[in-house]
């Protein structure tokens, strides 16, 4: 081995044993800077996202959209934008919404999402028809346990599963209840989850009652769920923040085409610049790590 080979090998060796906090710092900067100085890129919806969007958009008018908040605060960064986008889509098209949670920690997130989106629409509303009203246009059934009680019971009678809604109001007394009695009145249940709950919806609700299931999932689980998309058990799927961004884009295009005055903040789309930069940084890290590995291995040989 020549002296220059040794020097080169030493450099790569040191680079491989660099304090991991330098890696942390690079990741922090790579994600932060594009958030402050974004490069506007329009996401294009992939088939799993556009399938879900089109189904919800075109399902019969009287069918409600059910959103199951099956995620908890730890994955809310990825999944919460999906809930917001789905609620906006439903409210913008005048569709009734029923929201529930199979996770106790999902309740607060569902409440936040409904409060935010309802106020976005109500701020612009000029008539009663334009407004989005709790108990009339949407209902937050809340949470119950165990999950199979919810999934099977909703196919029979929803008010038996949720005698009171999240706010403690008797569900039988709500004006929306005669329109959403059980799965027959629901077009699709979209389960947004960081766990395998969407599969439980398929196993319990779909197998027994034939209800359509849509899935919003963390990117970690998304690759595993393609097999359920392929079999048609999931009508569509939003995979991670990217899936949420694509749904936001489809909705923005639809609202723009309809000349809607709504201008809504799109958090997932805003994140795409950082996501791009971070992916490139990770790839660079892996490439550098591998070059170092092969150079030092050759040096040792």
């Amino acid at each position, binding site marked *: 081995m020549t002296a220059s080979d040794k020097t080169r090998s030493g450099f790569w060796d040191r680079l491989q044993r660099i304090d991991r*906090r330098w890696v*942390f710092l690079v*990741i922090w900067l790579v*994600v*932060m800077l594009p*958030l*402050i100085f974004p490069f506007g890129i329009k996401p294009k919806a992939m088939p799993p996202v556009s399938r879900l969007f089109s189904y919800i958009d075109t399902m019969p008018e009287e069918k409600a959209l059910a959103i199951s908040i099956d995620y908890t605060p*730890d*994955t*809310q*960064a*990825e999944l*919460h934008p999906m809930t917001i986008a789905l609620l906006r889509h439903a409210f913008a098209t005048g569709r009734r919404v029923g929201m529930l949670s199979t996770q*106790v*920690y999902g*309740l*607060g997130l569902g409440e936040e999402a409904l409060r935010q989106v309802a106020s976005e629409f109500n701020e612009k509303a000029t008539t009663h028809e334009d407004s989005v009203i709790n108990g009339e246009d949407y209902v937050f059934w*809340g*949470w*119950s*346990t*165990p999950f*199979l009680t919810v999934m*099977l019971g909703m196919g029979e009678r929803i008010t038996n599963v949720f*005698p*009171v809604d*999240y706010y*403690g109001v008797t569900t039988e007394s709500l004006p929306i209840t005669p329109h959403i009695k059980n799965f027959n009145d629901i077009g699709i249940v979209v389960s947004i989850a960081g766990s395998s709950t969407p*599969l439980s919806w*398929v*196993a*319990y609700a*779909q*197998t*027994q009652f034939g209800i359509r299931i849509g899935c919003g999932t*963390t*990117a*970690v689980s*998304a*690759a*595993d769920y393609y*097999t359920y998309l*392929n*079999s*048609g*058990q999931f009508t569509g799927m939003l*995979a*991670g*923040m*990217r899936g949420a961004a694509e749904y936001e884009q489809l909705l923005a295009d639809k609202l723009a085409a309809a000349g809607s005055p709504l201008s809504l*903040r799109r*958090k997932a789309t*805003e*994140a795409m610049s*950082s*996501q791009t930069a*971070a*992916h490139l940084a*990770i790839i660079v890290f892996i490439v550098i790590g591998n070059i170092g590995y092969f150079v030092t291995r050759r040096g040792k040989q």
Partner: protein
Amino acid sequence: MNIANPLTPEGIWVWVAAILTMAVFSFLYRENPFYRFAEHLFVGIANGYAITFYWHRILVPYLFSPVSQGQKLYLIPIAMIGALYFTRFIPKVSWLVRFPIAIALGYGAGASIPRSVDATIIQQLKATIVTRASFADWQQGVWAVIILLGVICTISYFFFSSERKGLLKPISYVGVVFIMVGFGASFGYTVMARISLFIGRLQFLLGDWLGLIR
């Protein structure tokens, strides 16, 4: 946008959330008392939150309300079975905890067997089989054939009942190729997921707290 004002009722909570966020991030430098404080606080609040909803949304509407009105009195013995969970902390009678567990576990296992077999085996098998209908669109037909072959090869890799030689050897190796591509896809998406979680926190710190982004 400006930095959140800590002297307003909303602003003070933004500051609390930001300080707690930074306390957790301080772990990246090294473990420290701020992180430990945040960790312990989280466990406490999470349990308090759960107690609230188990009480207000399960025990009150399904147990205490009907029973106090003289309805569904059969719920009293059921509640007593449920209360056996407390015996878990009394060593002499801790075996009594098996009764509520037995009911929940038995129902869960029994209910899942037929439904899971249908959803995760029968429906998946149906989707794997290639029929003439699969070729309604020729491209989809080709993909369906690749999926069928990939499934067979993948399963054959996990076939440990006989020695891997003869035809099984190349088939299981093709299975490895499919598995590696699948794991690579999962890894790529895991990177995306983890980065998204960090972006979410930065959106809060830079937006809601510091007002640097809208």
